[in-house]
């Protein structure tokens, strides 16, 4: 091997070594979560911990469902996240269209403010309001409040998609006798379908992950998964199998959805300021 080729090899190996070092923490936490959920109690809380060689059991998963109404919690999370997303799209799509076409920048900025205002400052009035209306522990209260997380994301990311539609298309539709409503529904929306899917999934994930609003406004009947898992910490102590199993069960759908729309995540997290 020539001297030059050898140096090239060292460089390549060094580079991939760095890549592995930087990516290891990310992978390890997920790896540890999944392996803990599959280990029997003795090995999960064993010291020193076993990284690769351990016996596999599904007892943790069985326990999660046996000891908690975990299906109900999953259903609750599903109802709230879907409700928030559907409502967010119905309300948000026309608004994003309007901002994109009529350049309503002030409206856009007002909605951006929702990203800056601390969530907890909504929570006090909501709590008082929903308590007076006897609406604490209802899906309606949760869906409405989760809209604060979902709606701004939907609107801001969709503005970008609607802006990418050539103006001529809308004009052509109007000349052909479409109203603005027809141009929106028959021309614009079909063109931004990928965007609708991406923002819908983003809003679903944010609602699914939400802890702050649900911890106050969800009750016995509407408790969502993050709250259920939080409550498990106290009871389970170091019975780590079920805890890790619950964490894995919550995270899995999010990971699958994230992989589907990975190109749009950065745009979503930065409100379209950065197109990843």
């Amino acid at each position, binding site marked *: 091997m020539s001297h030059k080729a050898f140096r090239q090899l060292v460089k390549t190996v060094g580079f991939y070594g760095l890549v592995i070092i930087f990516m290891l923490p990310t992978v390890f936490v997920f790896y540890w979560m999944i392996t803990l959920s599959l280990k029997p109690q003795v090995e999960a809380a064993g010291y020193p911990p076993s990284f690769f060689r351990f016996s596999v059991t599904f007892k943790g998963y069985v326990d999660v469902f046996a000891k908690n109404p975990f299906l109900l919690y999953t259903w609750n999370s599903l109802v709230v996240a879907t409700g928030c997303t559907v409502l967010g799209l119905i309300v948000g799509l026309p*608004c994003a269209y*309007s901002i994109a076409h009529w350049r309503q920048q002030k409206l856009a900025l007002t*909605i951006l403010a929702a990203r800056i*205002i*601390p969530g907890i400052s909504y929570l006090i009035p909501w709590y008082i309001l929903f308590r007076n209306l006897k609406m604490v522990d209802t899906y309606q209260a949760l869906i409405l409040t989760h809209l604060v997380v979902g709606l701004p994301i939907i609107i801001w990311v969709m503005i970008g998609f609607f802006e990418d539609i050539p103006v001529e298309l809308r004009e052509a539709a109007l000349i052909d006798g479409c109203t603005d409503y027809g141009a929106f529904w028959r021309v614009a929306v079909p063109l931004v379908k990928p965007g609708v899917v991406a923002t819908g999934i983003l809003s679903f994930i944010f609602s699914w992950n939400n802890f702050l609003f649900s911890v106050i406004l969800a009750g016995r009947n509407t408790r969502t998964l*993050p709250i259920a898992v939080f409550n498990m910490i106290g009871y389970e102590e170091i019975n780590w199998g079920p805890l*890790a199993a*619950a964490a894995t069960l919550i995270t899995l759908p999010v990971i699958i959805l994230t992989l589907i729309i990975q190109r749009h995540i*950065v745009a979503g997290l930065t409100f379209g300021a950065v197109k990843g």
Partner: protein
Amino acid sequence: MPNQSDLVQRSVSGGEVLPMERFMRFAHRNARFIFPAPAVIAVALIIVYPVIYTGWMSLQEWFASSLTLPKFIAFANYKQILTGDPRFRDAFFRTLYFTLIAVSAETALGVAMALLFNREFWGRGLVRTLSILPMMATPTAISLVFVMMYHPTLGVMNYLVSLTGLSPFKWTYSSKTALYAIALVDVWEWTPLIMLIALAGLAALPKEPYESALIDGASNLQCFWYITLPLLRPTLIVAILFRSIDALKTFDIIFVMTQGGPSNSSETINILLFNQAFSYFNMGYASSMAVALFAIVMGACLILMKVRRVG
């Protein structure tokens, strides 16, 4: 143009304007207001109204657990926060400190990773995909995993520490290290965001300055310091802005892992305020803290925007 069609319509309907027609015409003319109307109503209901209510409530003294009505006390809550509440003062500096260490670490690491990954290599797509997972994974679940990893005697973190020969930490279980342990989780979650934003920024940089620098014999380090960093600055400030806004408001991971403890050592404004509102039901006082937190976040935004303009 509308007149012509109006004429046709009118002649068909015998000179009278039907209500339906009138409605259609109204809807047509005001489309730009009708399209955003549902969202505006939703925003007014779930965002504007609560914000105004919080502002109003911050001027009252009211315990939601009692039957007495709110009492107007003007700015007494704010006076108390600013001068008479050491716990708030501690929480205030803790929040700033937490944000500072977390966001600095994320920026330094994120930029380093972006520089490393800014080339074509086998596995680049996989790196990108893996990077977005920590940001999207449910924070409650991630905190739970870290709670188990941080366990002082059985946790894997102390095992890893012991491999390096250091003595074990108590992580979130000691008032000395709790805030850093939580910041580490934040760094784990959000470094990839800064990296991805920086990568997008690097991809958009022009080639010419590097070519002329190369001719002038500049070193890699000089290129980075005098060309890359200044050009990347606007992008980085956007990234830091987003991270700072969220870091100041961090709630989930702190609440799940320590709830502000041990002995208030990880109690940020958000946690203190949450407990004031929903453990003591001290709504007026908590509202004034919410307004203060909002002011702090706004202040951070304005400072960063200014820094951006100066550059």
